[in-house]
């Protein structure tokens, strides 16, 4: 399952890279890319249903909040 979201509040590319690295380590996430310039995050996960995915998305949000308090993913 591949989904794209708007990600705001990242103020440096290095932070984006770090966040990308950390999110990539979540078990259910196969691949993740943060495009710093278009403020988009593309998440590729092995989830099979939308419900499963929303749990993963919550995990990602929490992780992002921890690393970069200002980050929002919509």
């Amino acid at each position: 399952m591949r989904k794209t979201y708007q990600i705001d509040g990242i103020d440096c590319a290095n932070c984006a890279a770090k966040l990308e690295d950390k999110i990539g380590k979540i078990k259910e996430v196969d691949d993740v890319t943060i495009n710093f310039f278009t403020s988009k995050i593309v998440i590729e996960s092995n989830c099979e249903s939308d419900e499963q995915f929303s749990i993963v998305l919550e995990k990602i949000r929490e992780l992002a909040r921890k690393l970069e308090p200002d980050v929002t993913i919509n």
Partner: protein
Amino acid sequence: MKKNFRIEMVFTLIFAIIAFLIRQEFVSDVLYIIAYLIISFDILKKAIKNIFHGEIFDENFLMSIATLGALFIKEYPEAIAVMLLYKIGENFQSLAVGKSRNAIKELMEIKPDIANVKRNGNIDVVKPEEVQIDEIIVIKPGEKVPLDGVVVKGASMLDTKTITGESVPRTIKTNDLIYSGSINLNSVLEVKVTKKFENSTVSKILELVEDATSKKAKTEKFISKFARYYTPIVCILALLIATVPPIVFKMEFITCLYRALIFLVISCPCALVISVPLGFFGGIGGASKQGILIKGSNYLENLSKVDTVIFDKTGTITEGVFEIQKIVTNDISEDELIEIAAYGENFSNHPVAMAIRKKYAKKIEESQVNNLREISGKGVSANIFGKDTLIGNDKLLIENNVTFDEANEIGTIIYIAVDGQYKGYILIADTIKKESKKAIAQLKKENVKNIYMFTGDEAKIANKIAKLVGIDRCEAELLPDEKLKKLEQVLAKSSEKVIFVGDGINDSPCLARADIGIAMGAIGADAAIEAADVVIMDDKISKIKKAINISKKAMKIVKQNIIFAISVKIIILILGTLGMANMWLAVFADVGVSIIAILNSMRTLRE
């Protein structure tokens, strides 16, 4: 520059200057520390916060340690200057990033905002997303076409530059297909919508370009790996420099600590982490402006390393439109010959069959065709109007022992025999695109050493066309699976990257298998967008050379940035170790490199 930052800067400078002027040591120190705290408060705060999140190598933390270290050894002006310069640099960086973001936004400005839709006799202005298939939309001059559709009323000129990169406006009339994102130039059009907004051309393009960065290039992967190790390594080096020389060589601790702090100042790989992805993204954006959609940074990177290009013939080198060029009869009228051929080819979707039916243009009574048998690679045999008829190539006639005059023509020749008697032939040929020859010559100049043409067509025709356009190697009479096999052979042989160029619909396996699959004229054709790695929107093979140029330019800029940033850092590290650099120089170099690298990367956006 942020307003807060300006105020901070002013107060910091005031306090620092007063501190500098006051001769009384204690008061001066206190003022310096106040100045320092004003400028670095938010950074210190972030640093402390991040420690609790286990982020030791966070750049805020490193800058804090470096400057606090400077305070500790009573280098007050230095601590303040480093923080000040660092923050000025950050501000410039976000300015530059903001600028490139805007440039990218401009590229994405093809998205239409409104659609005028006809509903119950009124014209409603709605969002393009709300329009359904088969609704009628009205497009006024100057407006963007909001959705893909067929013109039902009106004629106009269309600027398709944002979609195809083609600057000459297209003339359109009733029944023409038009694509979202182009601009209506001179008169009102009424259009029946054929696709919902999310499937429209403009949505596809935007999605492609935005997603393109998710396929990372090798260079990008290298940089993110490098960045992950760079900071910890520099920090460990700093620790060693602060501790080893004082213990082993009995050097003065303060001196060594100062040198170690210089390391911390340049421990952020920011210059690379920002400029390299920006370089790739800019290249992809610049290409899309030219009507070349590149589906990933990896393909942009590979395009610069191409030494082999394989072309499909039909629809790529040639127009892909077959027309009857000549009819030669033997004891029969031309019309009768065409009629027999049209009946025989009634069930085939081969372009040749379609050309014959187009010429005949009358209704075909299917009951007149019996025992139709398709003989693969040869033609058809059938009973038409009660007579045994053969329609096909020379092999078919030879196999059936029909004597005939062999035609010496370039093109597809369809011989016709009725009841064992030769009745004549129809010559059908495809025209070569005007720009094919020039485009191939340009590719050769770009150091593409091997150019092939693959085709299922006859060797005689294929060789002639290859020769006319300047292609040295031609593989003809290939069945679809043989095309793939031949491609595998070329891939195995080639040391550099291999491009396969096809018209997208029937060449999907080859497009997917090649290092870079380029689909031509994908406008509207979903299958092509799906299978190919690079899509050329306007059918022009000259765009391949352009794509290679854009790729080479982007790669050059990316490499310049990598070499420049890494070497400046290494030089500062060496100078710092030897005690020949101070913190001012280090922070200046660090920030300077980032800004120059970003500005350099922004050149890829311009093409």
